[in-house]
């Protein structure tokens, strides 16, 4: 695809004899939301880890904005503008919500400062505040992350990612474990983010997926079963059998 922001070719990852991800070729179009769905154990999270640099691929290539980023360490991938959130909430529990976001925002300083107080970087502080506000956490800024409700921690997880101002978001089940009300709030946030970000999103909530995604890739057993527009996926017989259940569509 000509305007692909992120592209993988023949991406594979084996753990011993198990092929967790097998020959996955994807093209994520700039500005679009690309959902990845599939049953548990399909290799979705492994795929995200390969894209984010948390894992090195056994085979295949990843390119981002035209340059080959295969095998780049996670921090370099992040510095290149790819942000990720985790399925299992991964925040700094002892820090306040604001401190969590400030730490994220400070990661984007052009160099590591040793002697200047972090609080004097105005732009960084503003970015942290913006990210909090975007995720509706501004009233909880001084609360320790550990004391936030589960849903708020999930929102903080997203806020930290946003505080790094990434262009491409890798979201691993942003709605996992959320109640309907929180879930609706986050779907609303994701829709707003979709306006100026490219997103790769793993999600089990099919209503949310169909509401947000421009493209859906279905994975089963580490491989891509089908990929296409939501309507096409919904109509795909193979997908219905493998994942959505016989009585879907």
């Amino acid at each position: 695809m000509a305007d692909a922001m992120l592209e993988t070719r023949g991406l594979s990852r084996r753990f011993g004899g198990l092929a967790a991800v097998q020959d996955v070729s994807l093209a994520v179009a700039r500005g679009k939301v690309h959902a990845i769905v599939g049953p548990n154990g399909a290799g979705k999270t492994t795929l995200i880890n390969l894209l984010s640099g948390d894992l090195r691929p056994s085979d295949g290539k990843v390119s981002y904005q035209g340059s080959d980023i295969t095998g780049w360490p996670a921090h370099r991938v992040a510095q290149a503008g790819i942000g990720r959130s985790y399925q299992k909430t991964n925040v700094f529990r002892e820090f306040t919500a604001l401190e969590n976001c400030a730490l994220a925002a400070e990661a984007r300083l052009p160099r590591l400062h040793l002697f200047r107080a972090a609080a004097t970087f105005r732009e960084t502080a503003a970015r942290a505040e913006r990210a909090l506000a975007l995720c509706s956490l501004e009233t909880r800024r001084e609360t320790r992350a550990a004391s936030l409700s589960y849903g708020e921690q999930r929102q903080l997880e997203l806020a930290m990612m946003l505080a790094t101002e990434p262009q491409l978001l890798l979201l691993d089940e942003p709605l996992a474990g959320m109640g309907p009300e929180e879930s609706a709030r986050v779907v609303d946030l994701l829709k707003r983010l979709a306006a100026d970000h490219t997103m790769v999103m793993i999600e089990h909530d099919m209503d949310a997926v169909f509401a947000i995604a421009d493209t859906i890739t279905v994975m089963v057993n580490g491989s891509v079963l089908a990929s296409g527009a939501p309507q096409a996926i919904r109509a795909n017989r193979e997908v219905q059998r493998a994942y959505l259940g016989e009585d879907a569509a």
Partner: protein
Amino acid sequence: MPHLSRAALTALVLATGFLALFPLWGDTFYIRFVTKIMVYALFAMSLDLLVGYAGLVSLGHAAFFGIAVYAVAGLVNKAGVTSAFVLLPAALGASAMAAAAIGWLSIRTSGVYFIMITLALAQMLFYFFNDQKYWGGTDGMNIDQRPTLALGDLTLLNFGSRLQLYYLALACLAGAFVLLAVLLRSPFGHALVGIRANEGRMRALGYDVQRVKLIAFVIAGTLAGLAGFLEAARSTFATPALLGWHESGHVLVLVILGGMGTLYGPVLGAFVVLLLEDYFATLTDRWLLIMGVFVIAVVMFLPDGLAGLFRRVASLARGRGRSAGDG
């Protein structure tokens, strides 16, 4: 994130004032002894940057302390250099280079493996000095002259004066405290604390974790080298034991008993432990036994070390309520 409470700041100012005035009434023995304690407090504080802030438990930190002593010993005895303008940078440089090399190798590992590799690499340096007659072997060697600090004929500092050495050690301790406090407020300091809490998350945010760790390791090693320089000027004796794992373990005890993750904890630890060791030794030859009981008691009943005890007392004095918020 860590910041000093008002109580800690007050106590700090009082303690510094006390130390500054102590020579007015302290007798010679105790002026010497407190000088030694301040050197060890600086040494322990440097280790706390790794253990308490970066979460890197090093069991080889004495290597950087000892190598600075040998750098001074070598230059004085073998090359006849006594100017502190040469000796100090040489001591710091030797420690920094050793820390860069050992750090570069060890930060690839973590947890128990980090403990083992820092221990092993430091022991290699220990045996380097222990096994060579040139460096005095197991017996070590006397440092023939104390450092000098002079501009032309004007003596700036007389290392032979126990009073001037006392104030030099105090100035270095206070200076290191301020330097570390500044570092810990910077984005670098925040990154260190973040790495201790959750290394993987820091990577995902874009932090080059290995680089931050290596910088911390070199800073800690260099500050240990400053303590080593003071030790050389103070004791005028270089012995391989200064680099050994026993010494590394001892300074780790000062940090843990004093309170990891606070800058004043290791200082508190150095004062309490060294004074108690000295006192117990006057009671019995089996003083290590009493010391052992003390260590176990602190670890069992004061999980945050003596600094934790101080915090508890401070928050009681303030009345209940705002028990959170000091750090």
